[in-house]
């Protein structure tokens, strides 16, 4: 595959290369010292409080905007676990997880569509939520970045259309994988095969506010899973689509 097939405008390409290089060059180093042993040193001078989390050994992917404010409470913070309105739940490698209707707002202050996965390994009462979310349909850019809307029209016309997304259920880039699926209303079960082993079917559920709308399901698979295949089944047991993901190619590469 080459980009020549895309017929890139040479003027645009030159402008992009020049601009990206110029913006990058405008980024200068600061005096942040190298990280050292977890918990052994003071935080780098002049850093904001949440950098403390990184220095304390919290790995990539868990830096929370208010990780230091663990005593605060409110709508942005975990008030109870399991969370309310659970659509489905499971446990893998000792990590409990729940799938719930999205309860956060986008940057425009509107409720987000779809669902969120909550892991017990990364959420504690009193701390800020750490969740991953997804929605059903095609994203349509909103008036600002982070204000996307989701157009379900085309997807509802085709039961094979689905979205599957994966995230680590542990801290940072460790722990088992949680796979969320947003599927057509006809799809009632997810059949998951992990490295050649078929797991028990996982039922899908709709959001309460759209009982005839898209359905959602969640699966948990082990940390060392290479390939996960999700077959979408309708109410008759017929496979309407198959989604395969090489999980070993996602996330931060393993140190080997």
């Amino acid at each position, binding site marked *: *595959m*080459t*980009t020549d097939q*895309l017929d*890139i*405008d040479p003027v*645009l*390409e030159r*402008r*992009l*290369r020049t*601009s*990206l290089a*110029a*913006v*990058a*060059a*405008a*980024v*200068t*180093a*600061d005096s*942040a*010292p*190298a*990280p050292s042993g*977890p918990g*052994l040193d003071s935080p780098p001078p002049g850093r*904001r409080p949440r*950098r403390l989390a*990184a*220095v304390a050994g*919290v*790995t*990539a*992917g*868990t*830096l*929370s*905007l208010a990780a230091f404010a663990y005593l605060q409470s409110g709508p942005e913070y975990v008030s109870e676990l399991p969370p309310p309105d659970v659509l489905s739940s499971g446990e893998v490698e000792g990590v409990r997880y729940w799938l719930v209707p999205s309860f956060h*707002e*986008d*940057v425009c202050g509107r409720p*987000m569509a779809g669902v969120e996965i909550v892991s017990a390994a990364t959420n504690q009462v009193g701390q800020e939520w*750490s969740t*991953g979310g997804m929605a059903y349909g095609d*994203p349509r*850019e909103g008036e600002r*970045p*982070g204000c*996307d809307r989701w157009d379900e029209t085309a997807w509802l016309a085709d039961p094979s259309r689905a979205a599957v997304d994966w995230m680590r259920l542990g801290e*940072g880039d460790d722990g088992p994988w949680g796979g969320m699926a947003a599927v057509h209303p006809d799809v009632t079960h997810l059949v998951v095969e992990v490295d050649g082993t078929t797991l028990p079917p996982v039922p899908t559920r709709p959001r309460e506010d759209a009982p005839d709308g898209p359905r959602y399901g969640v699966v948990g698979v082990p940390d060392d899973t290479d390939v996960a295949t999700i077959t979408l089944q309708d109410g008759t047991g017929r496979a309407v689509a198959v989604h395969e993901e*090489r999980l070993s*190619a*996602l*996330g*931060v*590469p393993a*140190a*080997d």
Partner: protein
Amino acid sequence: MRSAPATGVGPSFEVAYKEQRLPLLRLAVLLTGSREHAEDAVQAVFTAAFPRWNSIAQPLSYLKRAVVNSCADVHRRRARDRRAVLDREPVTGIPEVDETWAVLRELPPRQRAVVVLHFYEDLPLVEIGRLLGRPAATVRSDLRRALDTLRKDLA
């Protein structure tokens, strides 16, 4: 400060940090559109790499991949946080560059990542697909959409 033992293959952790932090920070700024998020992403990657530095076979490649993925995590988290709003101030003072950067930052994160990795890092699309964990055809589609948007908005 505790030091990570030097590896017999790649650079020591301290050398890698000294030499690679700024290039990685620049890449992360382009990927996230935010110096603040970029610093967090890069720092988190180095922090995660420190205790296992000796076991990382190709540390420089590892660091770049980790930063790319960490920046993707930033986008996922930011999508869930209404308080995170992109800074919109000029960064270079060069009108054409700042205008281009402003349009680039408006791209969906995945499309911007493909543009940055292709035109800044000079990575082929297959390699970008491997980095992002996406099929190469999807990467190509993302790039095409991004270029369509850029062509229109910069006309």
